[in-house]
């Protein structure tokens, strides 16, 4: 179920582009103009343009815009430094802050009529999760070299044939749980809002769900950030 009107899809359809009516189109062009792609680009544009416009000139005594962004970036960095140490936070900050801001804006944008959350499509969240998953293991190999395999073998040598598949399975379960949690929460929000707008939109029925939607959006963005931080720091520390 989708929002009744998606204004970017509407404009693109008027321009003659093959906007798919399902979730994902058949041809490459239809895939490129499907709603979750166009709204991802909208979020990217938002995240590039709005800081450029509001930041102004960087000064020693921050003005209004600079103060706002300094609070957000400083808060994110402090949050990461608390959980993975100063060094790790410094190294992983660009990637994780990008994820946090992108997911937050992408979740929130669906609350407005005419917009849609790109994160309510499993492809988007799965892409984010796969990036986190591979980065975890690249970090592990970078920090421990070939000794990273010890993370998968457990403490007791003769239990290795049992522990190895178990550890592999629990690592793959991370991909599913991270992506499906975000996707499920946001899709539930979008679907519920759509149904309530359709049933009793004139009587402000979606209003409580809109308030809950703000909460869910922030919590899910934070949870994604926190869990990727935990996975990264687990890959960086020594096997127990």
């Amino acid at each position, binding site marked *: 179920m989708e929002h009744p009107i998606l204004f970017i899809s509407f404009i693109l359809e008027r321009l003659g582009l093959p906007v798919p009516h399902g979730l994902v189109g058949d041809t490459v062009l239809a895939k490129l103009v499907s709603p979750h792609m166009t709204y991802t680009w909208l979020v990217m544009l938002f995240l590039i343009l709005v800081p450029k416009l509001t930041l102004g000139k960087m000064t020693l005594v921050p003005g209004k815009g600079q103060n706002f962004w300094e609070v957000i970036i400083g808060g994110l960095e402090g949050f990461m430094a608390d959980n993975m140490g100063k060094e790790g936070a410094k190294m992983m900050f660009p990637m994780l802050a990008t994820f946090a801001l992108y997911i937050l804006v992408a979740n929130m944008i669906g609350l407005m009529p005419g917009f849609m959350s790109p994160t309510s499509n499993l492809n988007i969240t799965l892409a984010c999760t796969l990036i986190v998953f591979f980065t975890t293991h690249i970090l592990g190999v970078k920090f421990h070299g070939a000794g990273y395999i010890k993370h998968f073998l457990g403490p007791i040598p003769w239990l290795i044939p*049992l522990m190895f*598949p178990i550890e592999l*399975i*629990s690592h*793959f*379960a991370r991909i*599913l749980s991270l992506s499906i949690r975000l996707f499920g929460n946001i899709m539930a929000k979008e679907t519920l809002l759509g149904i309530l707008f359709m049933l009793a939109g004139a009587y402000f029925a979606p209003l409580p769900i809109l308030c809950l939607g703000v909460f869910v959006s922030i919590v899910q963005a*934070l949870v994604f950030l*926190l869990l990727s931080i935990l996975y990264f720091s687990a890959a960086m520390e020594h096997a127990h």
Partner: protein
Amino acid sequence: MSGDRKEVVKLLAEFSTIGMSVAFSIFIGVGIGYFLDHKVFAGRTSPWLTLIFLGFGVAAAFKNLYLMSRRKDL
């Protein structure tokens, strides 16, 4: 956020993964076993690898639960 609140939020995020990680571990175990049975060995070993990997999946789920329950910082 104050220190206490932050700790609570962190624990909530961590422990909200328990249910899903149990379910997904079992499903991934069955999935790997099914793939080995029907795609790699073309049904000759069916249904034994599915059952064995179902066991691995359940073991992985309970291992995660066990590790969570033995955390020292709670």
